[in-house]
């Protein structure tokens, strides 16, 4: 027997030698509509608790839902982008359960009539044998609503276990949610964790390109549950699966699946049986713990929602929505590569850094593509890597980068100071202008201050000054360096040089 906190794990290579993994991924996406799915309450993230609620989303008696057209459009566009068929006719259903985060005591969802079904997504996966394209088949994408946010209080850990009571904020209850469910993903073998990560990563890029969601895993607008099971070989029937929840970053998806494979393999190799259950991923300790066992089959008593009429998207409407889809990823890659004039390797590094959309957005906001690529792939990629977060989750936006570039172009800051400005923005010190003001990063642009520093440097290096006067313009570097040092880098080196030469009455070579 192993304890719950430190279960035995089989070495990964042994897992692959002895078992064939099967995965199923459920991704929940919060749509970025202005209002909730069934009422006109706002959906702003971070609003004061229980200020974006009304009788409908609080489940008060007599309140009637009214379906958000934009929510349905978002669902159809997601379905189309995932190469799904769109239902000719479908309904919502009530999923009945009692839980404090769902004030109606049922979640308005879809059951056997999803709006989109039978799709696929081709996912490029980095493997030891190079990039391979893996087709993930989509079972369905259906519409539902998010739940309220519970916080567990009174316990030592802030977790539900050991809490004395909970408090609930219903601002999130009723925000449109699309659940995207894959068919069983088979044949991935040792690459299974990488396939899962690549799938969610690609899905996130696709959803961002569709502009249907903020797709912020850190804020919960994109969430992934991973079903994993092992079987003896590709010919064997599926094994018993576990569902791991609370997987809130791309890295965690990969780690959680790898972990579950190793844990289940150890259980099976020890002659045990995998328990069908929900498990929770813990970001801090990198392990999963058992949640609710699913011995008693869930009984949600789904039935068609009587307060909403069916949805029958006309084929004209569906085609209109299809026309709004962004171009397919491969075509987009080729187009951007040509526009930016980068080679395959450079494009790969932009894609691998997760920087494509950020670079595109930065250019759209007014930066030139060289500058946009320079910041996202240099300074910011390093920072993201150091912090172990995704580039898109850094606390800096494409508009911030454009501000920094404007300040450089205006001569307010130089490249070196720009790095400090970016560090300030990342540290939450405000906009580029505010960081410059607060940290006093402005280039010394005042000629009299610069001239004073130049005269000082000349006085300290009279021999060098003499050489420059004699025509050895190349020697100017030493004086310029001294001035830069004296102004702590806050001067424009080219300007210092020009002032120095003018001061000594020498023409630039």
């Amino acid at each position, binding site marked *: 027997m192993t304890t719950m906190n430190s279960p035995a794990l089989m070495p990964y290579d042994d897992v692959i030698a002895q078992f064939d993994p099967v995965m199923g991924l459920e991704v929940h996406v919060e749509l970025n*509509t*202005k*209002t909730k799915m069934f*009422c*006109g*309450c*706002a959906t702003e993230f971070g609003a*004061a*608790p*229980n*200020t*974006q*609620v*009304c*009788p409908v989303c*609080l489940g008060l008696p007599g309140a009637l839902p*009214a*379906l*958000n*057209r*934009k*929510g*349905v459009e978002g669902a159809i566009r997601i379905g189309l982008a995932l190469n799904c068929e769109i239902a000719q*006719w479908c*309904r919502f259903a009530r999923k*009945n359960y*009692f*839980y*404090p985060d769902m004030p109606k005591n049922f979640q308005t969802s879809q059951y056997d009539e999803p709006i989109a079904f039978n799709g696929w997504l081709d996912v490029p996966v980095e493997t030891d044998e190079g990039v391979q394209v893996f087709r993930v088949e989509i079972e369905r994408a259906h519409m539902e609503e998010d739940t309220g946010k*519970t*916080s*567990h*209080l009174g316990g030592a850990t802030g*977790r*539900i276990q050991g*809490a*004395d*009571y*909970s*408090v*609930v*904020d*219903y601002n999130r209850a009723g925000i449109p949610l699309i659940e995207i469910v894959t068919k069983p993903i088979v044949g991935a073998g040792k690459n299974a964790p990488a396939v899962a990560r690549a799938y969610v990563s690609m899905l996130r890029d696709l959803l961002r390109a569709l502009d249907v969601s903020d797709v912020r895993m850190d804020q919960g607008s994109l969430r992934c549950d991973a079903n994993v099971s092992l079987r003896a070989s590709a010919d064997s029937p599926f094994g018993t699966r576990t569902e791991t*929840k*609370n997987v809130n970053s791309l890295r965690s998806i990969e780690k959680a699946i790898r972990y579950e494979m190793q844990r289940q393999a150890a259980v099976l190799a020890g002659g045990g049986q995998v328990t069908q259950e*929900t498990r*929770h991923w813990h970001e801090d300790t990198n392990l999963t713990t058992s*949640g*609710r066992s699913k011995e008693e089959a869930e*009984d949600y008593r789904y*039935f*068609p*929602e*009587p307060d*909403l*009429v*069916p*949805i*029958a*998207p006309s084929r004209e409407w569906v085609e209109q929505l299809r026309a709004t889809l962004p171009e397919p990823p491969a075509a987009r890659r080729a187009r951007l590569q040509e526009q930016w004039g980068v080679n395959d390797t450079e494009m790969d590094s932009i894609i691998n850094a997760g920087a494509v959309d950020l670079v595109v957005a930065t250019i759209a906001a007014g930066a030139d593509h060289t500058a946009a690529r320079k910041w996202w792939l240099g300074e910011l990629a390093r920072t993201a890597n150091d912090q172990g977060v995704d580039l898109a989750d850094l606390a800096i936006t494409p508009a911030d980068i454009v501000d920094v570039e404007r300040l450089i172009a205006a001569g307010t800051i130089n490249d070196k100071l720009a790095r400090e400005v970016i560090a300030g923005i990342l540290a939450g010190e405000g906009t580029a202008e505010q960081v410059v003001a607060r940290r006093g990063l402005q280039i010394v642009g005042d000629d009299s201050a610069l001239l004073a520093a130049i005269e000082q440097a000349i006085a300290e290096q009279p021999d060098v000054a003499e050489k420059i006067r004699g025509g050895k313009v190349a020697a100017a570097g030493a004086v310029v360096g001294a001035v830069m040092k004296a102004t702590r880098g806050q001067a424009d080196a080219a300007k210092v040089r020009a002032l120095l030469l003018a001061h000594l009455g020498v023409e630039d070579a």
Partner: protein
Amino acid sequence: MASPEITPDDVAHLARLARIDIPADRLAYYAGQLEVILGSIAKVSEVAGDDVPATSHPQPLTNAFREDEPGQSLTAEQALSGAPSVEDSRFRVPRILDEEA
């Protein structure tokens, strides 16, 4: 269509799901009542032929949409005014155990 059989165990299961506390000696009583209700509804299937689709809504409507325009929400004070317990502008609820977060 034959009317479905409802056992006391079915009633106990449904009662648990619906959080209704039904004494054990009343389970058979409610099983009989539910069976009569379901039997009555099942008679509809005897009349409706295969060409009559099941109905979930009395109005023959589809695509009743609302535009994505913000409407009136309640204030936190209004929203919380009927709550048995409130803490920090949130609904306070009893301890949740053995269920998922």
